[in-house]
């Protein structure tokens, strides 16, 4: 997979998890989101911070579209 494909895949997986997180109270949802970000970072050899960056960037893109 190239970088772009990895980013799309991370966003797809993260967006799925967001549906679960949306139903959680904030104090449970935030650590869950962080754990999920690092899980994906480990899976795709990147960084937890970068996963959040992908999530924000792609969400903004979708919003604009």
């Amino acid at each position, binding site marked *: 997979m190239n*970088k772009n494909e990895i*980013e799309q895949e991370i966003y797809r997986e993260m967006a799925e998890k967001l549906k679960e997180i949306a139903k959680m109270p904030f104090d449970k949802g935030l650590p869950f989101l962080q754990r999920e970000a690092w899980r994906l970072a480990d899976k795709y*050899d*990147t*960084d937890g*911070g*970068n*996963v959040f*960056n*992908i999530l924000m960037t792609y969400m903004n893109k979708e919003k604009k579209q």
Partner: protein
Amino acid sequence: MNIQRGLALVVSNNRYQHCNPLPSCEKDGADIEKSLRSLGFDVISAQDFMRQDLFNVIGQFLDASDSYSTILLFYSGHGVQIDGENYIVPIDCNPIDNKTIMINTGLVPIHVITEYMNVNPQKTNIVILDACRTSPTFTKDIMQGGLAEIKSGQGTFVSFATAPNRVAIGSSLSSENSVFTGCLLKHIEKPNVKIEDLFKLVRNDVIVQSGGTQNPWESTSLIEDFYFNIMSQDRISEHIYKTIRNRGVASDLIHLSDYYQHTISDIYRIYHKQKSEKPGGIHFSNTAELEAYILHQILELGFEYKYYRWIYKDMPVAMGEFYHDPQVIALEPLPGASINVSFELNEADVSENGCVISGRTNLPTNTQLMIKLQNSNLQYSAQSKAHVQSGIFNSEQFTMNKAPLPSGDYKILISTPIASVQPKEVQLHVGVKGCNLMGPYVSTNIIDGKTVEFQKVITIKFEK
């Protein structure tokens, strides 16, 4: 030539039959062997060998050496010099007064190996001798303490644990390395360090650890550069990235800086560059912005810039240079955390009991304030402490000799003490040294940080 980096003969002698044992030598040999294997050397190990066995293993080593481009001898144990010639002392050596008999029956001359090296200058030949130790039974007239200098032939590097004719420090514990080998093990795996530079690092450490009594010595005639560990920049960058990614604490940065011989700021730059190249990586288009970010991260990790030098837990560290002045950047607000300080005074509450100054501010709850009321015509000056509660503050009653304040114009001065004496929850909001405070009422001092100073003249009218 063999595809391995080289062939090493590691000889370590501990259990001497006729003189004092050297407990640390066993560990020295085992640790060096492990280290050399991890660096890609084939190793022939000889631990606690008798004289004849030692000759046999040296014979095997020299036979096998033909197919290697690098050959290395490491010896840890008793060593002696007789008439300027150095000898390994095997464990069955029984010291006697006649030096000819002693040489021919009890000792193993090091020149057996160095002669082979001299006739093979095309190879990289390395001799490391941690052997310059004295023994109570080796104090007879025929021998001198320490080893003699070996004149290395072409293509040979010889390292002694101490200066010629001086003795080296071992350890009486089998769980510890000798001073020289311990320092060598600390540095030998450092990547891309030339052998000459590596032994300079070892020498510096040994001199410090031995209090200046032991000074490792080298003699070199190597034709080409030799590195024990060669690593590509990509591998170094990835290792730095992985280490900081997984833990990212100040001690890791200090360790990486020492291991790769880079400054801490460069280590962090490498980490950030590597991170930005991963999927979803954040790129800074402006160098000044990136450098400011890196400096903030370094300060958040607990490094401090004090007295014009960088320290961590009161120990100086090799931080390197930054694009920005650390003293200035340390006082810049963290992104998204700035507080633009505002004050709004209520009308003074004047009564027979005195005058109360109150108002609103956006400073965090529990911020300590000092409210000062002055009137130069009346030569009046008084101050009161106040705490911010949900954006509101109230002073105590201001009076003049326990009587109500006379009418007139008064100057109000509201200030905060330095951030470090504010309650913890306030410090979390205002940041280290109050760095998050901003606005016209904030004054900055490089040493104390940011404090708030608000002034206003009000008119107080007291009517009975």
